[in-house]
């Protein structure tokens, strides 16, 4: 399920490979390629360095539960082939994740998740999801269409974080994280 439909600039998202076996409409040969649950995407205009985008997407996937302990990240070669980016960039991103302790590389096999970020237990996640669906039903009944729901959610999210911690923009530090702020 996609929850990011191009939400604003600077937002990166992951799309799951799909429950049905990992074949994407973009693969011309139609064969199941990656053994990884996730697929990276690249927002070339976001201004965020490429390797950071990959790091954030992995963390994001971990939080949302797309990636679980022991899952394999896409092979470097596959990422390079689908995004047409430099392989050193992917290596850099994977190294960063390893430094953060989130992943571990197994020689000859790939990179695997060895820690999770999810601070929300599964029953809580299910309850949250149910209440969210309820809200969505109400919004739909009020006449809001999909884009309206997304815009409302985004602005509320922004307000929430702004109220919570003030402005998060730090002047131009190269490795600054812009996650969470559109």
């Amino acid at each position: 399920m996609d929850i990011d439909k191009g939400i604003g600039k600077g937002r990166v998202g992951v799309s799951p490979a799909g429950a049905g076996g990992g074949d994407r409409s973009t693969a011309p040969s139609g064969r199941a390629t990656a053994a990884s649950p996730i697929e990276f995407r690249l927002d070339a205009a976001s201004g965020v360095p490429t390797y950071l985008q990959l790091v954030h997407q992995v963390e994001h996937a971990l939080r949302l539960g797309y990636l679980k302990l022991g899952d394999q990240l896409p092979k470097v070669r596959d990422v390079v082939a689908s995004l047409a980016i430099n392989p050193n960039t992917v290596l850099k991103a994977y190294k960063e994740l390893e430094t953060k302790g989130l992943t571990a590389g197994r020689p000859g096999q790939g990179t695997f998740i060895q820690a999770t970020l999810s601070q929300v237990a599964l029953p809580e996640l299910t309850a949250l999801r149910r209440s969210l669906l309820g809200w969505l039903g109400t919004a739909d009944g009020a006449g809001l269409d999909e884009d309206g729901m997304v815009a409302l959610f985004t602005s509320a999210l922004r307000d929430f974080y702004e109220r919570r911690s003030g402005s998060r923009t730090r002047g131009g530090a190269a490795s600054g994280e812009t996650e969470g702020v559109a």
Partner: protein
Amino acid sequence: MSMNVIEATGLGKRYGSTWALRECTLAIPAGHVAALVGPNGAGKTTLLNLAVGLAEPSAGGVTVLGGLPPGSPAALDGIAFVAQDTPVYKNLSAADMLHLTRNLNRRFDQRYAEARLAELGIPLNRKAGKLSGGQQAQLALTLALARRPRLLVLDEPVAMLDPVARHDFMATVLAAAAAEKGEGELGGVSVVLSSHVLTELERVADYLILLSQGRVQVAGEVDDLLASHRMLTGPAAEADKYAERPVVHVRRGEAQAHLLVRATADDPVPPGWEAHPVGLEELTLAYLREPGAAALPGPGRGRHTQPSEVTQ
């Protein structure tokens, strides 16, 4: 691999009385995707021709793959070149081109080539001249990669391709560079490609060589270059007084000025000024606008000259 795939010392090439390339000194390390960038006529094709042995230097020298003379049998064996406009024999079919390339080289991975062409949907028995531009480029690239070279040299490979073909072509090149050798190490093909298109460069290249008017202006790892340059934004009135770090290029408006300086994130920012990181495209454009500036690796090679100013 710690060798240099292309190493030039004072390299120069003259056609008649015009120097297409002069005093070119660089050392491109292996294991990188190096982009050779510059405006038309800057000498990119000349440099690549010298490296693959299609031209002889008029001055200086160049070696490849760790000291081999270009055009020597070992160099020809280890380097695959795809020239501009990807020349293939137009009246030969793709299958014929495979057979031809196999006969002309010591190594040829026929299975890979056939599988790759099948994957791309390129029919084996159609004449190469009847393929689309993107397909011809992919065919030329497949032939080059099937030779299992250590260095892949591409001269403006995507200039004539539409965006989809361009993406697919570069994805193939980068995947070839990403061969697995163990975590954290690249064991694939080293790539040197020339381009006069600056967008998408940052995604693709991790080593940059900037040629301008036949001379090397910038040469270095992209990460190092980006880490060693900052864009300072501040009052235009103070722009001339800034002297803490070498200034490469100035853009000024009435009240505001931007200075591209050679500084790192640790260097102090003058009060009233803001510092931002620079993207590769912006950095490249700034250097191209300052022919006198240079950022070359190693001590004593960089030249710190006063830049000219550009009024907005």
